[in-house]
């Protein structure tokens, strides 16, 4: 059985920590600039040379009941205040004040003067984040029967989707799109993750599917609104519960021809509001040639229609990121197969599907790209998904709301203005 490797999330955060050391009163978002690149490179080197994780500790994954009280935020998450809204500065009248950050230190070679111990902050940070745990909210969208629930269960190796609860799978297709969110706490290697899976039954199943994406867009904006309200509170919690959708997996039906008009419409409307990761569902009906042809056609169609899926080209910070993400973008959308049944293959128990002509192994890269999707979403880009949601999509929403409100923060603020209701029509996003 493989590991989810949630332990890698603190490493991803380590990168950000290194920036704090290196940059002084420079402006610009936290995750941009060559300092970030250097910091990431250092982190990678540190990972490579650091002692291997203690294997003696069993990698437990357990489903714990949801913890009632939110934990205090670790110091890291106070960092967003350090950023200035460079991209949005033309919309927001005045930038937020910068906190007191020490001047750029004269680089002293610490080896000459003895070991200080600054680098232990990484370990301190890691411990804190492990204690606090992470929030991750993933939404699955697609026609019924494309294997959405099975795939999410396979991704997180637990029964976390609607399928697992006592829902009767023979239920009728709902007449309108419903939004159903189910939360679980998963633990691995001492790291706790509060995972919320948001399902959208009824999408694309009716005869007339006009505007069936509207309930979804409304839900996403509502989560941004909730977060915004908490943020502008005078007495706000140390750690705002994050219900914003970090990632939206969109399931494409494996027709082998091209995208369906509904797919295009959905992605056009929502790619500017949330991170969309398109996946080709039930990919065991396509041969290798058909798969690559189909993927090429889908990518071309998305490009022609100006739809940017995650990882978006415009948010690549440096060359290293760009090359890494380019490679990923070239192989997207991933053609996946999901399964929650195990079979015996070559003496090993593997997740797969058994047919009269062979057994399809879910984690075998020759069979399908599930392993690529899992590594991408969980092992390398989980933190980045959250950051892009917070720094870009949420900020866009926030800027628009402030703009609507005349540059004042909404809520019982300076002039006692009351928060205007969440707009019924989705906010058009700034380019």
């Amino acid at each position: 059985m493989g590991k989810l490797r949630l332990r890698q999330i603190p490493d991803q955060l380590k990168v950000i920590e290194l920036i704090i050391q290196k940059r002084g009163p420079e402006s610009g978002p936290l995750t941009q600039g060559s300092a970030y690149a250097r910091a990431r490179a250092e982190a990678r080197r540190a990972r490579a040379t650091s002692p291997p994780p203690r294997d003696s500790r069993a990698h437990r994954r357990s489903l714990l009941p949801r913890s009632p009280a939110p934990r205090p935020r670790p110091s890291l998450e106070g960092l967003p205040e350090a950023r200035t809204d460079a991209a949005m500065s033309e919309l927001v009248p005045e930038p937020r004040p910068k906190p007191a950050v020490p001047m750029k230190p004269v680089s002293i070679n610490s080896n000459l003067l003895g070991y200080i111990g600054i680098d232990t902050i990484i370990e301190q940070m890691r411990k804190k984040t492990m204690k606090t745990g992470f929030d991750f909210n993933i939404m699955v969208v697609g026609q019924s029967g494309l294997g959405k629930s099975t795939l999410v269960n396979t991704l997180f190796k637990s029964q976390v989707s609607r399928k697992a609860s006592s829902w009767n799978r023979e239920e009728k297709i709902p007449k309108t799109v419903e939004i159903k969110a189910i939360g679980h706490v998963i633990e691995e290697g001492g790291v706790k993750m509060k995972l919320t899976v948001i399902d959208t039954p009824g999408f694309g199943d009716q005869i007339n599917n006009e505007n069936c994406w509207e309930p979804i867009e409304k839900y996403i904006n509502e989560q941004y609104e909730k977060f915004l309200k908490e943020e502008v509170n005078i007495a706000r919690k140390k750690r705002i519960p994050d219900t914003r959708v970090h990632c939206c997996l969109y399931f494409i039906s494996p027709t082998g021809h091209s995208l369906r008009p509904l797919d295009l419409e959905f992605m056009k409307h929502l790619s500017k509001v949330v991170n969309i990761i398109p996946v080709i569902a039930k990919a065991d009906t396509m041969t290798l040639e058909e798969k690559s042809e189909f993927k090429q056609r889908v990518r071309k169609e998305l490009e022609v229609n100006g739809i940017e899926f995650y990882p978006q080209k415009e948010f690549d910070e440096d060359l290293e990121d760009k090359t890494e993400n380019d490679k990923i973008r070239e192989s997207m959308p991933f053609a996946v197969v999901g399964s929650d049944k195990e079979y015996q293959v070559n003496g090993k128990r593997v997740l797969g599907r058994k047919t009269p002509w062979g057994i399809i192994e879910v984690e075998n890269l020759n069979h399908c790209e599930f392993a690529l999707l899992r590594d991408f979403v969980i092992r390398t880009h989980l933190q980045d998904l959250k950051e892009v949601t917070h720094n870009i999509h949420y900020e866009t929403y926030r800027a628009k709301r402030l703009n609507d409100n005349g540059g004042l923060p909404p809520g019982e603020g300076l002039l006692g203005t009351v928060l205007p209701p969440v707009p019924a029509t989705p906010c058009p996003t700034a380019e």
Partner: protein
Amino acid sequence: MDKEYVGFAALPNQLHRKSVKKGFDFTLMVAGESGLGKSTLINSLFLTNLYEDRQLPEASARLTRTLTIERRGVEIEEGGIKVKLTVVDTPGFGDSVDCSDCWLPVVRFIEEQFEQYLRDESGLNRKNIQDSRVHCCLYFISPFGRGLRPLDVAFLRAVHEKVNIIPVIGKADALMPKETQALKQKIRDQLKEEEINIYQFPDCDSDEDEDFKRQDAEMKESIPFAVIGSCEVVRDGGTRPVRGRRYSWGTVEVENPHHCDFLNLRRMLVQTHLQDLKEVTHDLLYEGYRASCLQSLARPGARDRTSRSKLSRQSATEIPLPMLPLAETEKLIREKDEELRRMQEMLEKMQAQMQQSQTQGEQSDTL
């Protein structure tokens, strides 16, 4: 003895020779969402390449496309018997975001073929009637759904009284055997629930041998057929070449009964029930259409003939055969009525004038 033998036992041979000379024509319609393997299946069934020059449009183009009906014909010959096969395709079905009423062009098409046949039948020259009626409709159900979707139900309800429907699950290699069984059962239950009449295989005669009966029962059990189509031949590591699809985990064989129901479908459609499909189309569906058409044409008070039972030719001749379609006849009647009225008016006017001139003449005479 020879004097007991009359010789009309050779009649079937004569019929056979005649029909072989005439050839058969068969119209098959394929319907269903795009991307379910319809074209590949047709090519596999009849070992042709009907869709060679097809251009598949992109998604943005399909946004505004309406459903079109395309006809492709091919002549297939096998063992001296010629079949003129017409395949009617329905590209654009189920494509758009709003598919309301997208089945209406299909229904209209089927009815038009019936109308055409009705007119030909009632015409003067009945020697070479071209039978373009749709004999069978293969409806493709998606293996990715959980049974029939609302669109499937709406389409089937609209056409089930007008054409023989054979439901088919396309791209069946997406399903494991248990899933296939569950899906088939779900579809059968749904068809019963929605009261959709699919083509019923006639029961085989009791004097058929056990083997045939068993095969027949098997075939009936496996409806809807879960099919896989392929025109590529794969050589599976030394064994003889088979038509199939090669995956990294194995090769699906199209003609392997353990892999899919392709053989069953082919046997049923081509080998055993081709003629029956044509007969049911003619005797049941066409007659039903004809009866309802003529009944609406005849004066009200005629006998009610909306029952779907087999109609005999004699009862139908009591109703006058229309020479023209309904709307034209009524128009003609109205025009003639108007003419008559106008002529009557003119006549009256002339009479009045004549009377007037007569009285004037009398007056002038007396003066």
